[in-house]
């Protein structure tokens, strides 16, 4: 069993972007805000004229937890696993796992960079990994 994202009309561009190797954020053409998760209008100035722009892919770990007790049958054999919150350079926050880095080395505040993970043929998630200069 695998938990996969289900896009909707509002989030379809986000997941299409992921397929194209980009992490897209809504950017307001009026006030410049970048935000996530998607909304129909700019949450700051209520403008409707936004565009989807790729994030730089640079971020920092805001927090993380190591899940020891599976809360869904789909991850019963995956525990323990790490879930992080990553604050993007552009401001918004996303949920991610931290790839290419053992859980013991993950720290709040550490820089991370965007990567992509194919969790099943054709199913891709944006993910983050330790920034190059921190990897050992």
């Amino acid at each position: 069993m695998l938990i996969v994202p289900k896009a909707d009309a509002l989030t379809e561009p986000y997941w299409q972007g992921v397929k194209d190797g980009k992490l897209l954020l809504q950017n307001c053409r009026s006030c410049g805000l970048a935000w996530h998760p998607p909304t129909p209008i700019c949450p700051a100035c209520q403008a409707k004229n936004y565009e989807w722009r790729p994030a730089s892919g640079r971020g920092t770990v805001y927090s993380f937890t190591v899940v020891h007790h599976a809360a869904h049958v789909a991850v019963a054999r995956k525990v323990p696993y790490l879930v992080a919150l990553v604050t993007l350079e552009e401001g918004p926050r996303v949920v991610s796992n931290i790839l290419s880095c053992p859980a013991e080395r993950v720290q709040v505040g550490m820089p991370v960079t965007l990567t992509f993970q194919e969790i099943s043929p054709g199913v891709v998630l944006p993910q983050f990994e330790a920034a190059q200069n921190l990897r050992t």
Partner: protein
Amino acid sequence: MYRKTAVVGIGQTEFSRDSGRTEWELALEAILAAAADAGIEPSEIDGIVRYAYDNVTQAMLARTLGSRDIRWYGEIPFGGIAQCGVVAQASAAIAAGIATTVVVYRSLNERSGVRYGRAERNIPSDGEFVHAATDRSPAGQFSGPYGLHVPGQVMALWARRYAYEAGITVEQLTEALGAVAVQQRNYANTNPAAMMRDRPLDRDAYLAGRMISAPLRLYDYCLESDGAAAMIITSAERARALRPDPVYVLAAQQSLYRHSEPITVYAADLTTFSGPGNIDKLYADARVRPQDISVAEFYDATSFAGMTCLETYGFAGHLTAWKHVLDKGIGPDSPVPVNTHGGHLSEGYIHGLNHLTEAVRQLRGIAANQVPGAEVALVGCHGSSSAIFGR
């Protein structure tokens, strides 16, 4: 709203792991007990406010309480933050003259039925590929595929960030959370209604609890419970005619702003749980200050959520509640005793309604762990909904 309405009746069922009864039966037992406690006929109830999470609807109650006419009914979404919202909406309806006698309640078979600590209720588990939909956090399309599934995991994320910003180690945070869990268990051990009344917990046992979602371990989490609780709220004038010890609503409010909905991971600052000015207004409406609060009952899905309410409600500075609970504690002799019934951690998980009934018992002077001379009681779900009651 100040002193315009009052609680005149409280009722509750046994809290257990398996009630063996329907949620409808549980709700009726609690509501009929609350009506009897208030000295009214159930048919006099003309207003109902429910948690949207509750499976017992207003129509199910209208059919079974002998209601002549329910003039006003409402419901509040988003889970536990309905806690004091039901008081605010019941009181608003009464103060506006729409209804006279409003019941608020929560009934759930949360242990024997649908368990909120499981994510299958949000992500179906019947296939090779199961879909995380909507943007909800946790368990939505942007969190479910990564393994972020339930509120208890989100609170672990909050907790680690808190330790980072407070400049303390995870071990120091754990000591503080343990102090909360142990004290709440102490309260439960002398509360005959508590599920954990016969189960002591000390620091060593707390630390030996298995890790659930690090840095939170077993005893940082609320119980899973079957049970129901209810309150009857009416006008202050009618309350005085019904009983000598009505518990007045001094203030009650709800709060919602960008990314404040539970259980968020998107707010810019996940160590602050209340909008600017929100709590100042609560105290101003209630005409009291934090130092006037005799006892506080805080919504504690986790020890962390309860502890940080000390900051939200002005008993400790930002990022210092950990020190407050270690130095001063939340026990009977502390500056503000917290969760005197044992809270969700040790009395039972009735989704915050049992915190309201405990506040009423404290102000009537009949609580199992009575705070001597309690005059003002605060109930709050980290600023998302709050109520202050007085004698």
